[in-house]
C-alpha cells in the first residue's frame, strides 16, 4: 500500500470529508442497532426470559396480537401434556390491564398468569415468588412506574386489588408494558369477569369454573420425538416457536421491519457514497494511472493498492463512528428504549465496512479500463 497510504496523506482533506460521511453513517447504524435491540427488549423481553420451546395458540387465531386474542381450554392443555416428546405443558394467561397504585399513579401492566411453581414462573431479585391469590411479581423496570414491594394496584373497572410481592431478576416487558406475573388461578378469576372488587380470596377462586387460558407453553423432552403438527391437529391448536411468537406480540413486526428497512437504506447509502467518491477519485487520477500502467504497474497491484486504501479509510472512520455512537448511546435518556449489545453493533460495523468496500471496489475496477498507451502524448 505504498501509494495508497501516501495518497491518503496527500489528499487528506478530500479523504477526511469522505471519512466523516462514513463515520456519520456508522453513528446512525449504531444508534439504530441500539434502538432496535431496545425496542425488541421492550416488546418481548417477557417472552425471551421464558425457557420454552414453543407456544400453542388456539387454531385460527390471527397472528397479529395473537397472545391476547387466543383462548385455549384445559382439554387442549391436557392433549399437549400427554403428547409424546413433551416434557411439560403449562397454561399461560395474557392480558393487558390498566390500574391505579395506592399512591394514585396510573400504571399499565401485562398480566402473565402462570402456574406458581411451574417453569414459567420467573426468578425474583427481591421479594418472593407470587403464590397466594392477588400476589404479583413485577418486572424490575416497573420500579420507575412507581411500584415497590407492598404496593397495591387496583385494576380499573373490576376493582380487583393486586399486591406487589416481588421483582423479577431481569427486564420483563411485553408490548412495551411491564409484566406482572400472578398465579394462573387469579388470572382466570380476573379474565372470567366474575371477580369482585378488593383482594381476590381463596373462596372466590375455589368457586370459579373457568378452564381457559390464552396459550399453552410447551417444553420439549430431550428425545425430541415431539410431532408438533400432529399434536396441533389433535389439540386444535397452532404452534409457534418462541422466536416466531415474537411476531405475535403487539407491534413487534412493524417496529423491527421499519428499523431493518432504515438500516438497509443506510448500508446502501454508505456503499453508494463511497462508490461515488472512489469513482471521482479514480477518474481524477486517470492520467496518473495510465502513467503507472505504462511504467509497468500490474492491474492487480493497482487494484490491491486501491482496495487497501479504501479499507484503511473505511476501517478508520467506522471505528471512529462506532465509538461516537456508543458514546452517544450512553447519554440516551432513560425513557428511550436503547440497549447496545456487542454482537449486533459488531455485525453492523462489519456490514458497513464490507458494503463500503464493495462500493469502492466497483469504482476501483475502473483502473482496469485505463489504457497505458494514453500516457503518451501528454495532456490532450
Amino acid at each position, binding site marked *: 500500500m*505504498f*501509494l495508497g497510504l*501516501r*495518497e491518503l*496523506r*496527500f*489528499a487528506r482533506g478530500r479523504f477526511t470529508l469522505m471519512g466523516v460521511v462514513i463515520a456519520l453513517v456508522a453513528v446512525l447504524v449504531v444508534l439504530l442497532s441500539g434502538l432496535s435491540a431496545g425496542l425488541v427488549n421492550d416488546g418481548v423481553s417477557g417472552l425471551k426470559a421464558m425457557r420454552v420451546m414453543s407456544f400453542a395458540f388456539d387454531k385460527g387465531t390471527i397472528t397479529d396480537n395473537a397472545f391476547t386474542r387466543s383462548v385455549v381450554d384445559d382439554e387442549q392443555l391436557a392433549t399437549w401434556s400427554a403428547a409424546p416428546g413433551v416434557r411439560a405443558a403449562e397454561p399461560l394467561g395474557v392480558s393487558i390491564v390498566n390500574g391505579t397504585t395506592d399512591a394514585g399513579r396510573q400504571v399499565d401492566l401485562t398480566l402473565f398468569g402462570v402456574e406458581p411453581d411451574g417453569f414459567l414462573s420467573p426468578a425474583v431479585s427481591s421479594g418472593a415468588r407470587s403464590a397466594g391469590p392477588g400476589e404479583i411479581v413485577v418486572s424490575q423496570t416497573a420500579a420507575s412506574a412507581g411500584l415497590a414491594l407492598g404496593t397495591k394496584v387496583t385494576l380499573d373497572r373490576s376493582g380487583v386489588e393486586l399486591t406487589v410481592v416481588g421483582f423479577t431478576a431481569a427486564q420483563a416487558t411485553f408490548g412495551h408494558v411491564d409484566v406482572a406475573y400472578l398465579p394462573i388461578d387469579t388470572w382466570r378469576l380476573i379474565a372470567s369477569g366474575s371477580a369482585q372488587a378488593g383482594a381476590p380470596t381463596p373462596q372466590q377462586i375455589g368457586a370459579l369454573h373457568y378452564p381457559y387460558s390464552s396459550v399453552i407453553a410447551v417444553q420439549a423432552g430431550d428425545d425430541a420425538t415431539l410431532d408438533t403438527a400432529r399434536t396441533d391437529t389433535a389439540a386444535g391448536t397452532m404452534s409457534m416457536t418462541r422466536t416466531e411468537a415474537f411476531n405475535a406480540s403487539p407491534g413487534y413486526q412493524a417496529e423491527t421491519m421499519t428499523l431493518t428497512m432504515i438500516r438497509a437504506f443506510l448500508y446502501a447509502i454508505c456503499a453508494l457514497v463511497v462508490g461515488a467518491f472512489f469513482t471521482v477519485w479514480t477518474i481524477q487520477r486517470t*492520467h*496518473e494511472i495510465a*502513467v*503507472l*500502467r*505504462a*511504467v*509497468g*504497474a*500490474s492491474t492487480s*497491484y493497482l487494484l490491491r493498492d486501491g482496495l487497501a486504501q479504501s479499507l484503511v479509510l473505511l476501517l478508520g472512520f467506522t471505528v471512529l463512528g462506532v465509538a461516537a455512537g456508543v458514546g452517544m448511546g450512553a447519554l440516551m435518556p432513560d425513557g428511550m428504549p436503547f440497549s447496545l449489545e456487542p454482537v449486533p453493533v459488531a455485525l453492523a460495523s462489519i456490514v458497513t465496512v464490507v458494503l463500503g468496500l464493495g462500493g469502492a471496489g466497483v469504482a476501483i475496477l475502473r483502473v482496469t479500463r485505463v489504457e*497505458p*498507451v494514453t*500516457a*503518451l*502524448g*501528454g*495532456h490532450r
Partner: protein
Amino acid sequence: MSTPSTTPALEIVGARLELGDGDARVHALDDVSLRVDPGEIVAVVGPSGSGKSSLLAVAGALAKPDSGIVRVHGTDVTALAKSAATRFRLTTIGFVFQSGNLIAALTATDQLRLAARLAGNRTADPAALLGSVGMAHRADHRPDQLSGGERQRVGIARALVNDPSLLLVDEPTAALDRASSHDVVRLLAARAHEAGVAVVMVTHDHDVLEHCDRVLEMTDGRLGERVLAA
C-alpha cells in the same frame, strides 16, 4: 552496463500500424524500420499526427503493430502477452513522459521508490540517482513544489531506476523554457553515453537536436534519416 554491441537495444523491422475507422483510417506507421544501439540517443521529429507517438507505443510494448517485428534488447515484444509486456516494460524499458507525469501524492524519492518496488528491485538507490540528475536537494518535494525542469529531471531518474536498456522519451521539453530544455536533453544524452542506455526521444523542439547522435524525421507514418544541420 556492458551490452554486446551485436545486440541492438531497439530493432524495428517493417512495422505497420493503422489507426481509426473508415474514412478516418490513417497509417500511423507505414513500413517503419529502425535500429538503435546501446549508448545512442536518437531524436525523432515531425509534425503532429505523423506517427511519432505510435512509434513510441510500439517500441514500448504499449501497442502491437499490425505487422512487422519489434525487438527490445533481443526480445520480440510483439509476441508478449499483456501481463508479460507489463512486466517487460517494468524491467527493460524506461519511459519519460511530457512534463514528467509524476504522481501528485509522492515526493521525488518516493516516485523512484515506487518504480523500484513495482519491479521488486531492492538494490535501487533513489538518493544516488536523484543526485546524479542534480535533484538531491529536492528529494523530499512533491511535484507541485517543483519547477517544470525539475519535474522532468525526476521523471528521468524514475525511468532509470530499474536500469533499463531502452529509454523512450516523449516530448520532454514541451513545457520547459529554453535553458531547462537544453539541461534536460543534455542530461539524457549524458546518461545514454555513460550508462550505455539507448534513448529514443520524440520532440518538436529543434533547438535541442544538437545533443543527439542521430535525428530521424517522421512524415505520414514514414521514417526517414535526416542530416543534422550542424
